[in-house]
């Protein structure tokens, strides 16, 4: 691995010599779901690769199947056609190697304290013993700035704090991939913006691989280094874009605005002719 340029352009995937084999490979995936009286195609023929260290964003309007696609990567549902492989192994069931952070605040176990919530999957997955799990839990709770609340129960926390705990819980497990399904969508605008910054800082710190679903163009550019733009009914890939040079600090710059406009055009402009 060559040294990163000192200018440290944010979000460059790990530069590897020549053939970078993808961590996650989604190939020709079509996803259908059944309602009582019809079979609906939610995602049609989608392919993309996520490399190690990527912050890969699935972006599109509601109904474009981006959450469905993330659900398939998580293993909650199975593609009708195509394959999803993680590290060369086909994804079949949900598992702790692909921890999911959900949009809903009730993803924390209300009967456990913050510390126990973070430690629980580390223990049940058998990846860490109890003592190590609790130590790691404290370390990751500190990373998201909630050390003072480690012994609190989730119902005493605000929405933003709950999402921080969920992120800490997922990261502490060292998953091969972190899946986030519109994790900030239910937060107020100020908290949301703060959380985006914090997520980026966490990434700088631990360099996890992220698959992130959002319907906010701005959020996609701030968070992502690659953006998969999807169109709805059924969800198809419109473009796979590079946003590696743009981040938190570039809000309001011409380059940021230009990419935003470009994506906006892909999602809305063409429909109006």
């Amino acid at each position, binding site marked *: 691995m060559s040294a990163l340029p000192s200018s440290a352009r944010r979000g460059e995937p790990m530069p590897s010599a020549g053939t970078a084999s993808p961590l996650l490979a989604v190939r020709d995936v079509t996803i259908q779901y059944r309602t009582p009286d019809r079979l609906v195609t939610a995602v049609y023929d989608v392919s993309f690769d996520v490399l190690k260290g990527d912050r890969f964003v699935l972006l599109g309007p509601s109904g474009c199947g981006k959450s469905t696609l993330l659900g398939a990567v998580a293993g909650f549902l199975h593609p009708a056609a195509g394959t999803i492989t993680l590290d060369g192994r086909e994804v079949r069931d949900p598992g702790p190697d692909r921890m*999911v952070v959900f949009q809903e605040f009730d*993803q924390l176990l209300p009967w456990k304290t913050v510390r126990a919530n973070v430690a629980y999957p580390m223990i049940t997955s058998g990846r860490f013993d109890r003592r190590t799990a609790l130590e790691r839990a404290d370390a990751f709770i500190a990373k998201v700035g909630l050390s003072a609340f480690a012994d609190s129960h989730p*119902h005493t926390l605000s929405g933003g704090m709950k999402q921080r705990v969920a992120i800490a819980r997922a990261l502490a497990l060292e998953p091969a991939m972190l899946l986030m399904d519109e994790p900030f969508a239910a937060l107020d605008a100020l908290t949301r913006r703060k959380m985006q910054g914090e997520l980026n800082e966490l990434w700088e710190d631990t360099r996890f691989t992220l698959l992130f679903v959002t319907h906010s163009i701005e959020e996609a550019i701030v968070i992502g280094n690659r953006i998969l733009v999807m169109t709805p009914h059924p969800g198809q890939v419109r473009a796979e874009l590079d946003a590696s040079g743009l981040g938190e600090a570039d809000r309001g710059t011409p380059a940021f605005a230009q990419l935003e406009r470009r994506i906006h055009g892909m999602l809305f402009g063409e429909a109006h002719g």
Partner: protein
Amino acid sequence: MAWRPEREYRPAPPGAIGDVSQSLPWLHRLAAREDFWRLAVLVALALVWEGYGRWLDDDLLFPTFSQTVAALWTATVSGVLPLRTLASLETLAMGYAGGVALAAILTTFATSTRIGAALLTTLTAMFNPLPAIALLPLALLWFGLGTPSLVFVITHSVLWAVALNAHAGFRSVGPTLRKAGHTFGLTGWRYVAGILVPAAFPSILSGLKMGWAFAWRTLIAAELVFGASSSGGGLGWFIFEHRNQLLIAEVFAGLLTVIAIGLVVESLVFGTIERRTLDRWGMRR
């Protein structure tokens, strides 16, 4: 529109405002406590009872609260009432444990398979409306005159209420929590024990409470119907016996014991469980 100047202020630092949260005076804190009000209701009821009993002045029909307490005291000191209470509680515990255990098995089966769910719903629909006491004649025929018959009817009275509530609780566990459990890699019984049971705990607990009340009701009624069991009889028998002797204050004392045990179990046992679980977890408002 008129031009208005822009203004910027400097908010006071936290220390300068003083205590942001202050504790309330004790009277307000007392008034906020639920047990205080429950105690007040109990005292008021006792006063009304005493007043009505004195006004009616008929020991045979309606002894006063003080007469009842006196009878309760005598029966307790003589050792009869504690003995009868113990006999009842023992039978009750067996029946309750049996009912809860069967409910656990049935509900686990119902959550894991479709046929189990159908079995549970059908059986519950069939047997839940059937008063346990209606099974007593059959039970007596099958198990004889004694504790096994009582345990059988109590088990019946507990089983359906607990199973129905637990199953409803499992079904109402939200999709996010279910997915969270799956994303941890939990499956099978670990998923049931680690996610479903605690998440459905409010329903399970209310089923247990309901089952407890049903069990009591059934036990006292059953003892009233066929009197003494082999061990010398329980509270129901105590009540029945004294009614036959027209010792109505003792009858009231027996009833009061039933009520008192109910209240104690409700507020101490279940109340403690609720405070330690539902309140701490924020599952109850």
